[in-house]
Structure formats: C-alpha cells, structure tokens
C-alpha cells in the first residue's frame, strides 16, 4: 500500500506531469500527421520519391533517441528551447509509420474504383479527397495509432533535455534509486499508451470501409 499512498501524496505533481506529457505527445502528433500524410500521398503517387522518403524515415528510426535529442540541441532556433528539440525529434520518429500506412492505404484502393472515378471525369484532386483518402482512412489511423504509442514511450526520454513530462519522475527515480518515483512516471505513461491504443483502435474500426 505504500505505492498507493505515495501516488496519492504526489497526485498533483503526477497529474501535472501527465498533462505535460499529453501536451508534448499531442503537439508532436499534429506535426507528424501534418507532414507524414502528405509525404505518404507523394510516396503512393510517385514511386521515384518513395525510396528516398521511406529510406530517410527508416534511418531516423534507427538513431537512438537520446542521441537524437543531443544532435538537435546545437541546431539554431530549435536548440533554444527544450520542447522544440523534443517535438522535432519525436515527430521524426513518428513519421515512418504514418508515411508507410498512408502510402499503403492509397495503394490498396481497388483499381476498378480508381478507373471508374477517372473515367467519369473526376479530377485528380477530387479522386484523392473523395475516394482515395476516405477509403484509406482506417489504414492511416492505424499508422497514427502506432506512432502515438511509440511517441508516448519515447517522450519520457525527452525529459533528459528538460521538457518535463512523466520522464521527470523516471530520471529522478533513477538518480535517487527510488522505485516509487520511477513507477510514478512509468505507470501513468503505460496507462496513457494503452488508452491511446484503445481509442485509436476503436476509431480505426469505425472508419474501416465495409467490403
């Protein structure tokens, strides 16, 4: 029961850190979606772009997150504030699943549907917004779901550059060899990840086109 007492006692700080964490992940996801979905569309459209874009996103994924935060610190403007660095690095990680799923969603639209749309005189833009994107929406959401869960986890590491959030507890707990402190960061982060996964899975199911 000691853990529960500790949580109760620290609830204001935990709540505060959770909100910071959500804010960090939310802003990151907005950027990642705003960049990733258009990139996914380009990858689906022009195959000669797909290698450099997917390759680049793949490479970004392999950089250890702590190192990536470090690399971005000296970058002008970005390095001035911790949350800028964190959001840029986290968004970079979140890109790959979003790009990949957007592209594969558009690729998997029935060619007969696309041919009918073109044949009836829809413009490329109308086909994209009225046919291709609605039909691949559930696949895109699946990519966003994977990226969100990933980001919630990695965002704890961003506390190392001073962004706050649930990682604060974890780093403090590590430094003080205090398991309760570590759990005060880890448990809410896990709950957040599970909740995001559940919500986005439900959304994905709702939007899946019937066959």
């Amino acid at each position, binding site marked *: 029961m000691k853990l529960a007492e500790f949580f109760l006692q620290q609830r204001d700080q935990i709540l505060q850190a959770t909100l910071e964490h959500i804010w960090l992940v939310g802003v990151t996801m907005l950027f990642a979606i705003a960049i990733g979905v258009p990139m996914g569309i380009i990858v689906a459209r022009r195959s000669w772009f797909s290698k450099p874009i997917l390759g680049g996103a793949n490479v970004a994924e392999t950089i250890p997150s702590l190192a990536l935060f470090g690399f971005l610190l000296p970058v002008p403007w970005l390095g001035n504030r911790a949350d800028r660095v964190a959001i840029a690095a986290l968004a970079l990680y979140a890109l790959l699943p979003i790009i990949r799923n957007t592209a594969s969603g558009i690729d998997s639209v*029935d060619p007969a549907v696309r041919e009918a749309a*073109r044949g009836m005189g829809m413009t490329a833009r109308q086909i994209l917004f009225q046919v291709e994107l609605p039909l691949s929406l559930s696949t895109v959401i699946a990519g966003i779901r994977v990226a969100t869960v990933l980001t919630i986890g990695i965002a704890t590491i961003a506390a190392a550059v001073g962004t706050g959030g649930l990682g604060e507890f974890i780093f403090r707990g590590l430094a003080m060899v205090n398991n309760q402190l570590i759990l005060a960061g880890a448990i809410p982060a896990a709950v957040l990840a599970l909740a995001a996964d559940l919500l986005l899975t439900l959304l994905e199911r709702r939007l899946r086109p019937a*066959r």
Partner: protein
Amino acid sequence: MIREPEGKPIIEFHRVGYRLPSGQTLLKNINFTVFQGQTLILLGRSGAGKTTALKLINRLLDPTGGEVRVDGRATLEWDPIALRRSIGYVIQDTGLFPHYTVAQNVSLIPKLERWPAERIRSRVDELLVVVGLDPEKFLLRYPHELSGGQRKRVGLARALAADPPILLMDEPFGALDPLTRSDVRREFHELQRRLEKTIVIVTHDISEALLLGTRIGLVEAGELKDIYWPKEFLNAKEPVAMAYLAQLQVLQEAQEEK
C-alpha cells in the same frame, strides 16, 4: 434496323494506333465511325485490344498514332474532364465506391456538376426505376449489400446520371451467372431503344454482340478485322468470325438433340 443516311458521326477512329511506352503495340491502324444513336460492339478475345480502344475514346489513354474524334473534335483537343463528363462509363467490376450508398454513387456526377439538390434527388429515383431497382429499398444500401446483378444496375444508373450522349461499356454483363446475365442484358436491350444514345460495348460474347449491336467490329491481335451488320456477321467467312459463330451452332445442335 438500318438507318439511311446514318446521321451525325459521333465517334471516329482515323488510323489510330496505340503503343505502350515499352514499345509493345496494342492497337494498329484502327478505323471506324459510330454514328449518332448507333451501338458498336467490339468483339474479340481477352488481350485483343478492345478495352484499350475504349479507353482511347474517353481519353483514359491518348493515341500514339492517328486521331480519335468525339463529336467532330480530336480527343487531344478536348479538356479530358469535360470529355469524360459527357461520356458514361461502365466497367466490368463496376468500380462502385464502397464507402458511398447507392444514392451517393448514382448522384456523384450530378453533384460534381453542381445540380440543385432537389433535381439530383428526383434524378436518382428516376434512374433507379429505369434500371429496375426499387428506390425505397436500395437508395441507402452500400455496394457490399448488393448482389452482382444489382451492382451492375447501379453502375449503369451512375453512368447515365448526367444524361451523357455517349455510353462506353466494358464487359458490362461480365462476371454474372448466365441467367442473371441474360436478364440484365434483355433489360438493357429495351433501355437501349428508349435512350437513343451512341454506345460502344466491349464483349467476348457473340450472342450479346448479335443482340445489342447496330454493328459488330471484330478485334483480333490489335487490329480491327472487319465491321459487320449483325446479319452479315452470321454469314461471315472470316475464320475468327466463323469460330464465334461455331459457338452458336453448338447451342443449336444441343437444342435439336433434345
């Protein structure tokens, strides 16, 4: 039913060729004219180039040689969107939008053409009746809730929605069971007489060709072998044409044996 004179030429192919970027020739030196209100059948086996010829008409493909004219104007001079909006397009797999209801599918082009909502609604009802579907029952269904024959009917209704003067149909009755196929075909035959559209139908079915065609063009390995009136076709001496006719004879013989 021979019309003399034949009226206004609507679709014209002048020495039309189509070559893939890889250099493979799919069509060479195709010449024909479809006059107003006529139905041309392009009959041939899979891979003969029939579908390619069809796609040259609504500019899903551009000819690499010669000229395709629609309504007296080369397709390359047409704005492709405007050209396609004036041509109904029906394909074998229907290409109905799976995320749209029957009503949304049928009203697609009228909506893009910004018809007033009231007119779109009455047009959709009217069209469903024309293709033999009860609007009350079908308006709000999705394509996956329809049978194969019903989907074909919705596909046809969608193609007719903005009342285009031309209709292109690629194996419109394909992939249906034989009984449904002959039902849908017979209904279309009656519709065809009422609508007075200029129609090009691609098929490999000889009875379909004889029933629906004002003329029958025989396509073989990228070339148009000949164009026949249905009566002429029955007496054609061309080997490929005779092979098609042999199919009909099998049917007759089977009937006579019983």
